[in-house]
């Protein structure tokens, strides 16, 4: 069982350093404080290689659907339509798998970018209220924890406006 790659003192130092920052992930034990949560996560990410050597993987879980929404948003948020763009979903899935722990790989219902992260979502879901609701719920966590998923702040701002639109149509 014993692994040979870890250095106990090194990891204890990391834990101590993060503990001393005193991140309050929950506020008064009632709500989560996303700013502190993201800061703590960032510190862990910075030390991911050392933790890996300790057999601790800090990659986060994300459903393939949310991961693909994040990637489509990141790459194509400036486009008004997916028509005329060659998008290889298999490639996007590979990127998703390298960035997140993806256990639900089932995308049978999501065969095209428009199925996954539709342009003009109000129009796309106008005949299916349930699907619209599920899409809206898929967006919320991506918006709140954007730092974990995006590197592009414009893509994030754009996603917020999509969320507002779909909340009002």
């Amino acid at each position: 069982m014993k692994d040979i790659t870890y250095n106990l003192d090194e990891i204890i130092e990391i834990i101590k350093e993060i503990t001393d920052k005193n991140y309050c992930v929950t506020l008064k034990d009632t709500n989560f404080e996303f700013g502190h949560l993201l800061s703590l996560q960032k510190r862990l990410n910075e030390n991911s290689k050392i933790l890996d050597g300790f057999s601790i993987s800090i990659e986060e879980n994300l459903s393939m659907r949310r991961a693909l929404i994040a990637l489509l948003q990141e790459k194509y948020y400036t486009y008004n339509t997916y028509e005329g763009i060659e998008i290889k979903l298999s490639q996007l899935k590979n990127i998703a798998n390298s960035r997140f722990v993806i256990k639900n790989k089932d995308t049978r219902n999501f065969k095209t970018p428009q199925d996954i992260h539709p342009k003009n979502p109000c129009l796309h879901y106008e005949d299916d209220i349930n699907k619209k609701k599920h899409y809206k719920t898929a967006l919320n966590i991506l918006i709140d924890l954007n730092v974990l998923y995006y590197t592009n702040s414009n893509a994030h701002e754009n996603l917020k406006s999509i969320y507002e639109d779909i909340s009002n149509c």
Partner: protein
Amino acid sequence: MELKVLDFKEFNHIKFEEIEAKYENDPNPVKFTLDEFKSIVSLLFSVQYHTPEVSEEHLHNIADILYEEYPIVNITSKFGRQMIENLENDYLEWMNSLSNKSYRISEIIINEELNDFIHLALIDYMIIRKFEYGKFFLNEWSKLFFNLDGYSLSMNVAEIIGVFRTKEDAFKMLCNKLLKKNPDLSGYEVLFLAFTFKELFYKSDKDFVNYALTNFIVRDKIHELNTRIDTLKLSMIKEINPNQKTNDNTHNKKNNNDKDIDEEGLNKGKGGPKR
């Protein structure tokens, strides 16, 4: 979005084998009671959280979760149930609509719609809930395996608490002590035990990183921890009460390994907790 911390509630869990026995001869899809449905979803949550993918290769581990073979593995489904009981707004509405549908029990584990819900409403939220899960796990596995009444006053525990109060590198000292006494422990096992000890006897509101790391360890290593449960138990007992007899009840019995220590071990005989 505002996300509240979990409000831990009482619930009625129904075992999967009971649900299966009730419906397995039904030729048509069946509608479960709400408690049956929530129990199934909580077990599927645990399957999805601990299993790289639902496939033949992992069938044995999946069955261990689904049929609740080991107490330590069951902790995750209990946490999943608390998440279910705390759903609100769109997610609650979604769950209620799913609970009103009919399913074939034999195909429930691969039901696409249900798995979509489990991931979008539960698993994806572990990015936030991991702190609560880590804390919950440390407390629950301790409750299962150690009778903690009176321990806070045992000499050994008092000594370590004293170290935490006075020494800045107390956590390091505890880890090194654990490793010295139990040289066969792997690195993540030492940490897991040290986090447990800290949570039981000297927890603080700064321990979020401990909870996050516990989450990652347990998420990926639950079956390994279960296999090593006797070693982990004994390592903890040595730390809590070094005079405790350790030659009994070291096997990992299905379903009743939580009773071993309580009935035979820590509170009886020479070396019981000092009050």
